[in-house]
Structure formats: C-alpha cells, structure tokens
C-alpha cells in the first residue's frame, strides 16, 4: 500500500498460514492450548476477543488452583523454589544502542562493535582465561565468602545428585519433550552456598490474550555436572606476573585436570579437590620455590552467573572448532559467502551466539546473522568516490568513510575509521613497540609478506576508545591503517537509501522463520556431529538440547481504534489504512493559509498535487483552501531559501510551508527544514516531485498520506485507542548519536499532554559526550509537567516512561541514578509525588520468536507477547511483537521495567505498551515500539542529522518532525 515503504517491508508479504493449523499435528500439546489452533480457522477475528482464555493471575506466593493450566501451576511452585541470584551485569552483548537511523536492517545485520576488539583469544586447550572485567566481581564475592570459607563443603555432600539442574528447565509452559517431573520437596537445596539470600520471584506473567505455541532462537543447555568448584589460588612468595601464574598452575595438571578456567587468582574446575591443596613450583627466573595453595571457596550451581563468562569462552572455542571465522564477537562462514557483484558486496552467513542465564535456566541464544562486506578494499572504494565527485573528493570520503567499521586483510581485527590522514602515506614511518622506526611498506612486507601496491594512498586513522582513561584525559596513540589493506563492513550509508540494493540485500538477509530454523538446526547438528566441538562443552558438563526452545506465549487482545465518528476493532494484520483515509480523523486543523513553493519545471506536478489534495480533503474532514503559489525560477537552495524567507517575514499568518523539490537532495531538504524548524518556526512539508509523477495512479493515496501528515504537523489528531488509565502521562525518550565520535548526541523527549494520549509535547537537548543525560531530562520533564498542567489544570498522577537508547549495561544506572534524579523534579511542584513506571525499550536484540502453530515455523501474529522462560532473572520484563512482519523473522521488542511505583500489573504493562504501538500517526498500523519512542526517535534524528540545532520552542506542541 505504501509507495515509499522502507525497504525491508518491501517484497513478498509473508503469509500467515493459519489454514495450515492442524491441531492433530502436535498431539502432545496439553488440552488448554488447543484454543490457539482454532483461533485462526474458526474465529478469524473474533477469536481474540471471545476465545480469550482468562488465566488466573496468581497473587504473589500463592499456589494456583487451575488444574487445566498445569504448566502454570508447576511454574508457580517452581518459582517459589527457584534460586535467586545476585544481580549481574549481563555479559556478551552490549551491542544495544549503537548508531541510529538504520533500524530497518540492523537487527539482522551484524555490526561489529568496538568492544569486539577485545575478543578473547583463549586457546583451545583446557584452560580458559577469564577476562579481567569479571574478575573484580568474582573476587569480591570470593572474599566475602572467605569469611566463612568452608561452609560449602559440608553442604555439598548432601546435595550432590540432586536434580537442581532440572528445576530451571521446567519453567513456565515450556513444552520440552521431556515429561514434567515433579521434584521431591527435599530437592531444592542449593549446591551453591553463594545464594543463601533468596530473592522473591518476580511477578511478571500476564494472562490476557490467547495462548499460542511459539518457539524461540534459544537452546536449552543442560548442566550435567553436579557443580562447578571455585578455588582461590595463592602464590607465596607472591608471583606478580600473570603468565607465570598460569604456567605454574599448568605444571600441576595432574592435580587440577585439563579442564580449568583460571584468571590468575580465581580458579574454576569441574572437579572437586580437597578443601585445601598445597603444591610447589620453582620460579624459573631465580629458582625460588613457590608454594601454590589451592583453596576451595565455593561450590557453585553449574548454571551460576559466575560460570557464564567462561562458558562463553568455551562456546567461542566450539565455533572455532567448527571452522567459523570470528569477526568482532560473532562467527561467520566465508566459504558460503554470497557475492553481489553489481553492488560490490559479499554477504557472509553466520551466528551471533552467546550463553546466558534466563529465568528458565541456562540457554544458548543463537541468532542467524549476516555480515555484509565490501568486495573492494577501502582504496578501491575511494577511487570509486573520486570517479563520482572529483570536486569535493576529500569531503565525500570523510562523509562516507568516517564511522565505518573495517576489517584488515592481515589480522582478525576490526577498526572504526575515525579520521583520514591525507598528508601521510605508507612511505611514512611509525614507531614499533621496541622504539624502532619503520615505514608502513616495510612493516607489512616484513611481518605479513604483503607488498603495498599504492605508495601514495592516504592513511585511515582509528582512535582506540578511551575505555579505561578517565574522561578528558588525553588520548594516547592512534592507529594508522592502509586503505589498500582494509575492507569496509556493513551496508554503506549510501546504499541504505537505494531501494534496489536494499531489496536485493534483504532477500539475502531477511530469512523466513523457516529458514532461520533450518540454519539453527544446522548449527546444532554441526556441534552434535563434531566430536571435538561437543567434547569442548561436555568437559564442563554442558549439553545442548537437540532442538530450539518451544514455549507458550499469548496474543494480546485486539485494540479498538477510535476515529472522530467511528471506532472499530483492528483487522488481523493490524492495519487500518482504509478506515483512516475514508473517515474523519479525531480533529483536523483547517488549513486556510498555506504556501506552495515549486520550481518552474515542476509546475505540472504542483497543479496535480493541489487539485488532488483538494479532492480528498473533504472525506478526511480537513478544510483546505487553495495555496498561495510561489513558483521558483530554478531549484537551487538559495532560490528556495530566499522565497520562503520573504513569505514568512511578510505574512505573519502562514500556517504551513509546502515545498516540491526535484530529486533527493539532502542539502536542500536540510536547508528548508533548518529554515522552518529553527529560524522561522512554521510547520513544513517537503515533497519529491518524483513521487507525484512516477505513480499517477497512486496519487490519490499519496495525497491522502501527505494531507494526514500535514494535519499532524499542524497539531491535528488522527486516531486514538482506549486508554483506561486516567491522569496518565506517557513519555518517550531516545538518543541520536552522531556517527563521528566525540560529537554531541541528541536527546529526543516526547510527553503526552492529554488523557487520550493524542497530544504531544516535545523537546530536544544537545549534549556533549560524557555529559550526564539526566541534566537535560530534568529540564524536559519539568517543562512537560508544566505544559500538562496548563492543558489539564492538574498534574498527572502516573507517569510512564519508555526509555530507548539505553544499553544493557546501563540498566542499573537508569534504575539507581537516573530515576531518583527524575523524581527530584517533582519537588518543583507543591505536594506532588506521582507514581512512576519506567521501561527500557530494547529493539536491537537477538531474540527471535517464531510461531509454532503449524508444521513450519512462521512469523508470529502482531500482539504476541512472551513473559517467561527467556526473560530476565533480575527484572520484570517481557518481549512483545507489536508490528505485522511481512518479511523476515519476528524480532520482538524487549521491555524491561526498571521502576514500577504505580504497581501496574504485568497485564497492564503489556497492554498499555501494545496500545501505544498503535499510536504512531505516520503509519496506520502497529509499529515495533510505542509511539512516543518512535516520535522521540524521529525528533532526535531530525535535530541531530538535519537541523544540527534545537528546534524552535514554538513548535513544541506539534508533531512537526514527522
């Protein structure tokens, strides 16, 4: 329906083959689930309403009675028994929240992250070196434990042989093929004594909606060992050198066994040594005898958080054994590359896999991903740029290369291009570690046998992240790289705008759930078949389940869309284009005085557009008088700017500026937007003449969308959904990061200011790197509350915040620091203490959800929610697919609730979120994220990418940024 639909929605729609639902095909499912199957067939649309199976929402601690939902019953019991663990910082994927503006494809295309550079190079022998980062934590725990060092021992004896490993396996509604075992009450005695303080199980399961069978791209890991033993190793006299410590421990393989994970002081073994073991080594440097004391400090549950890091090291080794190539932190198979010669790209299939601990136990999360790599070296690419734009060659190179990630020909590293040094060449020298000067040409020739062909190329600069340096401290060292020996990874920015390339790429990259599943099965099979690979895991007692995890989810009830005179329940596909283009929207701003700018050669398009706009304005309920016509003699930026300025300065009552431009011209678009959003604030609409001409038959629908969008920009309201919560303010936040490092990032902030959530107040703040985001948020929040009061004469009682642009590692920071700071804002108002709910919205996640209702996996229907098994152990969270995915897999959005003083129930949270996904007026359907998040994203993007400035305050009550 959508002529300029983002590319990844293009192509063949993915049919939702409900007709294939044959209940008999999966007879092992419990009876309760059958409702799901009939939904698609018997009650095509009513199913969700009527067939709604109300599951009893259990109060905390109580045991559910409903015998028909046996899985849930078991769950509640198990949850009570579950071992709570101390909160952890998830390892592995800190990928979230990088780069903006290309949401469309990123989830499936691997983007090397800076952190990937530090990939562990652990060997493939028995021991792995646990990375330093987790060391600190591990040691702290170890010491704490050390005060009562050997409690663990006594306990261990009685626990061994317990079925603790299985407890986590039997989580909510997991349809494992294994029969549900009822554990005997004496089982849950923790092997580990690290978790004596049990945490209350989190209440996060909702019950609204229709249960559906789902599958996810996670594989259950069975821990077959009874325990992992943690030891503290002391060297006396002390040995400083870490590698020497490794060496000394290795000398005693006969004691420790081959399978070790040692970081220099903490040692993990799958075997139990005596409480204390004394060994001796001779220090080679001076012959001094060193006493090595190995003391047991803990007996860990094999799925303990402390084990996850080295399990991941082990798994990386498994991937290497399977001959997959590590790029960044993911693994690819270049031998199966697809080459797209016409675009000069290669696509490597691969996996992003990591072991993580979820509510349901230990899982391997494996995403099927692709790496897009340029066929040509960066130097070739620069030559191509030179061909295209000789005049501003250097600028163009800077624009297209900076921020890109490259891999080099001679080692396995990835680097981010931060700058280009045009004055240096490979003939220049740099200083080696030993202080010697060497030219780049000689260096590559001596070390890698590479002959540099082009001696006059400029050099690329990579500035390593100031990871450990305190902010503000001088950067030390930059890395210079040769364009000739570097390859660009990722899809070039320019191509992202090219419909054709993206369509071809998406065919390669966007796999159907079925293809996904095939690919995952292949991986599992390869591990299973490869003895070395699967021994590697078995050494630690890990065994992968032979299939991906199947679990039950729910499809949330359909929502009612409210227009001005009519309301309706959404269709299966959750799209209401027809309805909203035929009937009046909630409120329309009459357009009495608007100006149309167009270049002389687009006069026909201008006439066509205006006459069509007038034809369709009636049915939409929007009053539209003819525009003031301003014909420009050419299409230069100055012509537009001069004309717009003169009109806006002469007429104080211009409601709207509409510009027809020819071709895609970012510079012209930017100039018009800067003029209309910053300098002389007025809502503006830019239209490409081509979209009017190329599809004359579609002009009607184009005009309808343009007019609806204009209405939003002027402050009109298109549609709404029922919001039962009263006195509510919903806030969306997102951050735009400038691709060139060190530049300011832009915070977009959008808050609702009426009860139906159809009026929005927006602010933008530019902030310097390292500046606390919270300072800007306070300003925004206070302003939004004042505006709310101005409109409603009261302040909201509940505030729900959807915070995007937060990485996994920052969750704690948001909870512990940001939110309390935000709450301080309330002191600005007298006796004001609203309830607060804060969600962190994570779009770029590797979890996929497939519908398992048929023989073949399909994309789950919009509204599918999963709130157990793969969810976090530390937070109330859920996965929701709100959008209708036409192509590719259902990538859910992950919502993590980090604050809930309003005591919203899981059902409330899930349904409110889903409702908000209906509210994005640029799309008559549901989108992946709640509308305020999307608005905040668009706003931040426009301000950061185009305006480079905060928009004028006069526009803050309008959705001018659509």
């Amino acid at each position: 329906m959508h002529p300029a639909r983002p590319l990844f929605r293009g192509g063949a729609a993915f049919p939702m083959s409900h007709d294939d639902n044959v209940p008999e095909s999966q007879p092992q499912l419990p009876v309760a689930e059958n409702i799901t199957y009939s939904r698609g067939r018997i009650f095509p649309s009513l199913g969700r309403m009527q067939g709604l199976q109300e599951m009893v929402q259990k109060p905390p601690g109580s045991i559910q009675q409903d015998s028909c939902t046996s899985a849930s019953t078991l769950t509640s019991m198990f949850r009570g028994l579950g071992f709570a663990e101390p909160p952890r910082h998830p390892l592995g994927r800190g990928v979230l929240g990088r780069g903006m503006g290309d949401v469309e494809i990123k989830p499936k295309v691997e983007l090397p992250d800076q952190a990937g550079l530090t990939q562990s190079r652990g060997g493939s022998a028995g021991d792995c070196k646990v990375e330093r980062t987790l060391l600190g934590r591990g040691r702290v725990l170890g010491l704490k434990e050390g005060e009562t060092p050997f409690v663990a021992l006594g306990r261990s004896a009685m626990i061994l042989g317990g079925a603790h490993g299985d407890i986590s396996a039997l989580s909510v509604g997991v349809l494992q093929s294994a029969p549900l075992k009822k554990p005997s009450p004496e089982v849950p005695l923790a092997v580990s004594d690290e978790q004596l303080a049990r945490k209350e199980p989190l209440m996060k399961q909702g019950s609204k909606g229709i249960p559906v069978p789902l599958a996810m791209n996670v594989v259950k890991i069975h821990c077959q060992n009874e325990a992992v033993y943690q030891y503290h190793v002391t060297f006396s006299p002390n040995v400083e050198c870490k590698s020497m410590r490794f060496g000394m421990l290795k000398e005693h393989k006969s004691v420790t066994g081959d399978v070790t994970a040692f970081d220099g002081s903490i040692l993990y073994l799958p075997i139990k040594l005596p409480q204390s073991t004394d060994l001796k080594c001779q220090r080679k440097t001076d012959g001094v005898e060193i006493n090595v004391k190995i003391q047991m400090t803990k007996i860990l549950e094999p799925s303990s958080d402390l084990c996850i890091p080295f399990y991941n090291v082990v798994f990386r080794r498994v991937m290497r054994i399977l001959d997959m190539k590590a790029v960044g932190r993911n693994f690819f198979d270049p031998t199966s590359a697809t080459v797209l010669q016409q675009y000069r790209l290669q696509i490597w299939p691969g996996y992003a896999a990591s072991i993580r601990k979820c509510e349901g136990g230990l899982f391997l999360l494996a995403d099927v991903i692709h790496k897009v790599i340029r066929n040509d070296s960066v130097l070739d690419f620069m030559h191509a740029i030179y061909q295209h734009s000789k005049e501003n060659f250097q600028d163009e190179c800077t624009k297209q290369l900076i921020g890109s990630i490259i891999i080099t020909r001679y080692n396995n590293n990835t680097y981010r291009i931060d700058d280009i040094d045009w004055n240096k060449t490979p003939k220049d020298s740099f200083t080696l570690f030993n202080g010697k000067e060497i030219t780049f040409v000689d260096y590559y020739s001596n070390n890698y046998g590479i002959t540099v062909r082009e001696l006059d190329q400029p050099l690329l600069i990579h500035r390593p992240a100031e990871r450990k340096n305190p902010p503000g401290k001088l950067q030390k060292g930059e890395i210079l790289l040769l364009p000739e020996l570097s390859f660009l990874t990722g899809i070039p920015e320019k191509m992202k705008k090219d419909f054709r390339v993206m369509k071809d790429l998406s065919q390669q990259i966007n796999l159907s759930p079925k293809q996904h599943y095939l690919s995952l099965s292949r991986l599992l099979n390869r591990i299973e078949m490869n003895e070395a690979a699967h021994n590697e895991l078995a050494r630690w007692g890990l065994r992968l389940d032979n299939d991906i995890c199947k679990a039950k989810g729910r499809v949330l009830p359909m929502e009612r869309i409210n227009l001005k005179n009519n309301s309706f329940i959404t269709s299966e596909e959750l799209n209401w284009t027809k309805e909203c283009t035929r009937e009046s929207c909630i409120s329309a701003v009459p357009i009495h005085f608007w100006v149309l700018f167009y270049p002389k050669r687009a006069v026909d398009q201008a006439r066509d557009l205006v006459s069509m706009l007038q034809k369709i304005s009636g049915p939409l309920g929007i009053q539209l008088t003819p525009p003031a016509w301003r014909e420009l003699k050419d299409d230069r930026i100055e012509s537009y700017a001069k004309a717009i300025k003169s009109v806006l300065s002469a007429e104080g009552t211009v409601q709207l500026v509409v510009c027809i431009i020819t071709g895609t011209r970012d510079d012209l678009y930017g100039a018009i937007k800067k003029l209309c959003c910053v300098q002389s604030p007025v809502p503006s609409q830019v239209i490409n003449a081509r979209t009017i001409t190329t599809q004359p038959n579609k002009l009607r629908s184009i005009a309808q969308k343009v007019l609806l969008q204009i209405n939003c920009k002027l402050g009109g309201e298109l549609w709404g959904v029922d919001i039962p919560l009263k006195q509510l303010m919903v806030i969306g936040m997102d951050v735009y990061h400038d691709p060139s490092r060190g530049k300011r990032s832009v915070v977009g902030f959008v808050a609702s200011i009426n009860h139906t959530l159809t009026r929005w107040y927006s602010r933008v703040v530019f902030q310097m790197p390292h500046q606390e985001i919270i300072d800007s948020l306070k300003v925004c929040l206070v302003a939004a509350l004042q505006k709310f009061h101005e409109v409603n004469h009261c302040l909201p009682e509940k505030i729900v915040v959807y915070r995007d642009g937060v990485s996994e590692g920052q969750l704690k920071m948001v909870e512990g620091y940001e939110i309390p700071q935000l709450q301080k804002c309330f002191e600005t108002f007298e006796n004001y203490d609203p309830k607060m709910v804060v969600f962190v919205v994570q779009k770029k996640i590797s979890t996929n959800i497939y519908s398992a209702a048929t023989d073949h996996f399909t994309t789950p229907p919009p509204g599918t929610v999963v709130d157990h098994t793969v969810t976090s152990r530390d937070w109330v969270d859920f996965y929701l697919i709100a959008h209708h995915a036409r192509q590719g897999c259902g990538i859910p959005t992950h919502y993590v609730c980090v604050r809930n003083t309003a005591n919203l129930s899981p059902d409330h949270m899930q349904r409110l979120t889903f409702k908000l996904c209906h509210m994005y007026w640029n799309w008559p359907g549901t989108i992946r994220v709640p509308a305020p998040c999307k608005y905040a994203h668009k706003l931040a993007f426009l301000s950061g990418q185009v305006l480079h400035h905060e928009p004028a305050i006069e526009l803050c009550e309008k959705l001018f940024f659509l």
Partner: protein
Amino acid sequence: MDEKLRKDELTRTVKFTPPLYKQRYQFIKQLVNKHKPKKVADLGCADCRLLWMLKFCNCIEMLVGLDISEDVMKEKMHMLYPLPGDFLQPSERSLTVILHQGSVAQKDPHMLGFDMVTCIELIEHLEIKELEKFPEVVFGFMSPAMIIISTPNSEFNPLLPTVTLFRHPDHKFEWSRAQFQNWALDAAARYDYTVEFTGLGAPPPGKDDVGFCTQIGVFVRKYLKNGEPETVEEYKEHVYKTIFKAVYPSLKDEKYLQTAVVNEVVRTSQTIARRLLDKRKSKYKKVRDGVETDPPFLTSCFLKDVEDPSLTKADNPHIEPFINGQTVYMPLAKIFSVPKVKQLCGTFETLSKLITGKVALSNDGSALLIDTEYENEELENEHLFPSSKP
C-alpha cells in the same frame, strides 16, 4: 612453547635484542625468503609461532607442523586458520597448513617430499633413543632439500648466571660446539648432505671464545631429487595423528578465481561506463552552464585515475565501449586489455568462461552490457513518506 620464552628470560642478563627466540624465527624466515621452498615442515613446532610467521611467506604452499604434544599445539593453533581477509582477497598461491601429533623418531609418509625442514631447539629435548633415530628419520627418510637444526651451545652457559645444569629442565643434554658439529657432520656425511654452521646471540665482548648462544647447522642435500619421492613400502602406514588442517582460499581454486575475475571485470567496466556517461553529461553541462570547473588540487594516488592509460587509451577503435540507448556496451576485448584482468585470467578464453552466467553479456557474447538506467535514477524521496517500520 613457553620454555623457549623462559629460556630467553634466563638469558636476559646477557640481553639479546630482539630476544633470541625471535632471532631464530627471523633467521628461518630469511632462509625461506632466500630459497623459496614450497613445502616446509617445522619439527617440534610447539605453539606454532614459527608456522604462523611462515604462513605469510608467499612462496610456501604446504606448511606442516609436528610436535609430540597435542595440547601445546592446540593452544595457539587457531592462529593458523585463514583470516576473514583471506577470503576477501584470496592469495594467488595455494596454502595448506597441517599439524600432526607424533614423534621425530617415527617415520610417516606425511613428511615426505619437503623442501625445508626446521628443528628449532628440538634435539636437546630428545631422549637418547630418539636422538639415535633422528638422523635416520629426518635425513634418511624425510630427506628434504634443506634442514635447519638449532640447539643451545653449552659453552655459553657460564655466561648465564641462573643456569645450573641445563637451560631448561626438560633438556636431556646440551652440547658444546664440537659435540654438535661432530654429530652434524656425521649425519651429513651419512645421508649425503653438506652442512654449514652458524649461530645467533653473539657473546659479550671479551668472551668471544665461547661462541654463539644458539648454534645452528644448515644442511643442504647434495643431489636433486627428481619427481615424487619414492615411498618405501613399509612406511606407507600413517603413524602421526593429524590434529589440524586448514586449506586457504586461493585463486588456484576456480571458485575464488571466478569471484575475483568477475569482481575486477565489473569494477573496471563500471568505471569505464561511468566515464563515458560523465563525458556525455559534461558536454551537456558545458552547453547549459557555459563554464567548466577545474578539479581541485589533490596530492595522492587518485590523480592518476584521470589519466589511467589502461582505461582511456584507444589502441583499437573496434574494442572501444559505446552507449546505445540506456545500455553501455563494453567489449570483452577491452576488458581483457586491463592488466589486472589479463593477469588473473591469462587467456581471453578463461575470461569468457569465468564471467559467462555471472554478468550480462550481449547476444554474441562479445560485450558486457551495463544498464545505465540504474545509474541515472534518482533515489526515492525518503522524507515524504513515513519511514516508520512496523
């Protein structure tokens, strides 16, 4: 192997820069660059460090490591896998890297037919019985064109204060120069090799009489072997355990050659087509604007593009590309005249064969077709329509 490092830690008081173990590897690398062996084996390869350095030597097509300890090899062997970059720009030579677990005292047909075999700090780790068999296995059976053997020079030991008996506890012996040379000369004589002695780690001034810290014998086989080495019947059985094998992508493999050729062909023809179009456009532009701007000053390789003879020179008007409507016709003969394409394909027939089916060709197959519609097309206006992604 760690012990090599440790040895150097020991010798630090005498201070060799770069460290002696690196000097030993460098020594081998220089020999490889000089003699260009195709098949090289490192006996006692330990942590595969030398193999890793040698894999960058472009002459080597077969690189084999042998060590008695599987664990030690496994520790770093992943460094011997091809890199992602090797797949992007496959090398012209083929390269296979193999690691075997086994003893130098045993004969295995895997080790036949080598051009160079290196035994760096190996023999001093051998038990007497193994050492006795060593010459027969390495010189007699493997019989490579060149053998390099290095071992500590015990005469140097007094200069190493921390060394009491041997430099490493696993050493079974350490020889003086005379001992080593006697052994070496004997082996060389018996198996028809010449040997030259050298060393690394010169003694400090005033102690010149002790000789190098590491002593090295370079053995060269006197006669040339023709053809395949004859396999002795009784040693057909493989006693070594192969623990690693990596075949590097190479242009010798047709799959990669094809990718490389098509890549080059497409790139070249796009460049030429772009130039043709530019010419046409600039003519039009000149007429319209009446001015021509000079390209700005630019100091680098990119200026050369402007006058790249291979792309612009018209030797033969029959092979010049031309535009017909929306399509640029690029004669294959023209493409073949580009040096890099020629170098990759060798013959015109190979070029035709490799690109057929991979690119659009004219009916008679004599020219490559480039659709310029794509080049001219303006991009959709992404600003007009919601870029919302459901």
